[in-house]
C-alpha cells in the first residue's frame, strides 16, 4: 500500500482536474497575432518615446516664458508625467531585443515629424500661451492618445501585453493632461480673436502632423 495520501497523484497517472476547469469562464477570447512583429513594435516604442521626451523638454522650457501662474504650476505635473511616460517606454525597449543600453533611445520616424516637434516648441514669447498650449494639448497629445489606443487594439493581445499595459497607463494620464489644458484654453480664449488664434494654430500643427504621417510616420491623422 502506498504512503501517499488518498487522492494524491501517483506516478504515471493523469491529474484529476478537468482541463482549464477553473479558467474557462469567461473564455479567453483573445487571439494570437497582432499587426506588428517585435522589431516593428520596438521602432514604434522609440517613436512614442521621442514624442514624450521632447514634449517634456519643451514644456520645461516654457515654464519660464508662460506668465499665467496656474499654467506654470499645472505644467509642472504634466512634465513629470510625460517624463515617466518616456521612462516606461524606454524600459520596454530592452524587453524587445534592443539591448540593455536602449532604455534612453528615442527616434523620430522621419524628418517631417521632427519638424512638427520643432514647430510645437516654436512659440516663445509670453503673449503666446494659447499657441503653446494648442500645439501641445489640442493636437499632439490627442494624436498620441489616438495612436496609443489603436496600438493597444491592434498589437498581439497576449504576446505584447506589456506594451498594452504601459500604454494604458500613459493614456489614462494623457487624457487628464488634455482635459486640464482644455479648461485652461477655454478660459484663455475669451474673445473671438483669441478663439481664432486657437483654431488657426490647431489647423497649422495638424496639417504638419498629417504630412509627417503622425508619430510613427505611417499613421492617418484625423482632421479634428
Amino acid at each position, binding site marked *: 500500500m502506498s504512503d501517499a495520501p488518498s487522492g494524491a497523484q501517483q506516478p504515471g497517472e493523469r491529474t484529476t482536474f478537468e482541463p482549464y476547469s477553473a479558467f474557462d469562464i469567461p473564455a479567453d477570447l483573445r487571439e494570437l497575432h497582432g499587426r506588428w512583429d517585435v522589431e516593428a513594435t520596438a521602432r514604434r516604442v522609440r517613436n512614442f518615446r521621442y514624442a514624450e*521626451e521632447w514634449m*517634456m*523638454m*519643451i*514644456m*520645461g*522650457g*516654457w*515654464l*519660464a*516664458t*508662460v*506668465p*499665467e*501662474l496656474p499654467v*506654470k*504650476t*499645472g*505644467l*509642472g*505635473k504634466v*512634465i*513629470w508625467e*510625460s*517624463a*515617466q511616460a518616456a*521612462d516606461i517606454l*524606454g524600459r520596454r525597449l530592452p524587453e524587445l531585443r534592443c539591448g540593455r543600453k536602449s*532604455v*534612453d533611445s528615442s527616434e523620430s520616424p522621419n524628418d517631417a515629424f521632427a519638424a512638427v516637434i520643432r514647430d510645437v*516648441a*516654436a*512659440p*516663445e514669447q*509670453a503673449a503666446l500661451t494659447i499657441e503653446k498650449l494648442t500645439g501641445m494639448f489640442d493636437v499632439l497629445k490627442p494624436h498620441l492618445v489616438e495612436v496609443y489606443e489603436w496600438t493597444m487594439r491592434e498589437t498581439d493581445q497576449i504576446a505584447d501585453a506589456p506594451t498594452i499595459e504601459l500604454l494604458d497607463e500613459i493614456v489614462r494620464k494623457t487624457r487628464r493632461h488634455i482635459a486640464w489644458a482644455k479648461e485652461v484654453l477655454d478660459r484663455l480664449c475669451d474673445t473671438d480673436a483669441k478663439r481664432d488664434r486657437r483654431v488657426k494654430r490647431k489647423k497649422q500643427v495638424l496639417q504638419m502632423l498629417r504630412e509627417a504621417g503622425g508619430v510613427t510616420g505611417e499613421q492617418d491623422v484625423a482632421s479634428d
Partner: protein
Amino acid sequence: MKRFIHHSELARDRRFIRAENILATILGSLPDDADAVAEAFERLDPLVAESVKGTAAEPLYEEFGCAFGIVATNEPLDPGSPAVETRLKLRMHGIFVGEMQALEGAGRSLWDFPDAPWEFKMNMARQCWDEARHVQIYEKLLEHCGGYVGMFPESTFLFEACCHEDPALRVAGVNRGLEGLACDVFRDMIKFAEKTGDEKMKQAVDYVLADELTHVRFGSDWVREFTKDDPERYKRAQDYRREVDKQFSFGGARSDREDAVIPIARADRKEAGFTDEELEELSQISSGGPSRKTLAQAAAILIERHKARRAGNQQAAE
C-alpha cells in the same frame, strides 16, 4: 525656442512688480560699517522708491525710506516682535517667488541641456513637479498669513545667480546653492511655526523641506557625475557654488553667526549630502558682511535722513 534665457525674460502676470536685483544682493558686498552701509543704500534709494510703487511695501518705504529693506528683513522672525506680521509676509512672498524661480530653473535645465543623460532629465522633471507644488503651497501659506501674490516687488536674482550655461555649474548653483538656502530658510520657518503653534504651516513646510533635501541630493550626484575625470570642471563647479553661496548669504543674514537671521541648517544639509568640509566652508563664506547691530545703526541713519528729507519737502511745499 531659444536656449539660455536672461532673467529679465521670466514671464509674470500683471500682479507682479519686478525689483532691481542689486537690492537683494548688495549686502553681501558691504563692510561691517554703518556709514558705508547707509551710503550704499542711499545710492539705491531711487531704485527702491520705484520698485515699491503700488505694492504693500510702499507704506513701509514712506515710513522708513530705503531702510525698510534692512528693518523688515534683517531681523529674525520673533513671534513677540511688533513687526513680525510684516516680516512674515515679506519672508513668505520672498519664498513664494523663490520657488517660482526654482521651478523655472529646473524647467530650463530640461530645455537648455537636451543631450544630458536621461536620469538627469528624470530628476529635473521630478523637480519641476515638486517646485510647482511648492509654488502652490507657498501661495496658500502666503494667504494663510494674510498676504497675497504680488504684494511685494520680486527680485529675480535667484534665477540670475544660479542659471549657468554649463550643466555642472547649473546644478551646483540651483540644486546645491539655491536648494541649500531653501533648507536653511525652511528649517527656520518650521521653528517659527513651532513657536507660534501653527500646525498647518509646520506640516506643509516640513514636506517641502523633505523635497528640498532630495533636490540637493540630485545636485550632489550630478555635480559628481558631470565632473568625473575632469578636475578642472569640478573646481569650476565648486568655485561657482561658493560664489552663489556668498550671494545667498545676504551679508551674513544667512550664516552660522550668532546674530544670523537664518541659521545654517547643518543637520538637514548633512542629510542632503553636504560634507563637513563643505559646511565649514559655507560657514566661513557666509559669515562676512555687516553685523545685525551695524545694520540697525545704518537703518537708524537712513531713517533719520529720510524723515529730514520728508520734512524739508513738506516745508518747501508749504
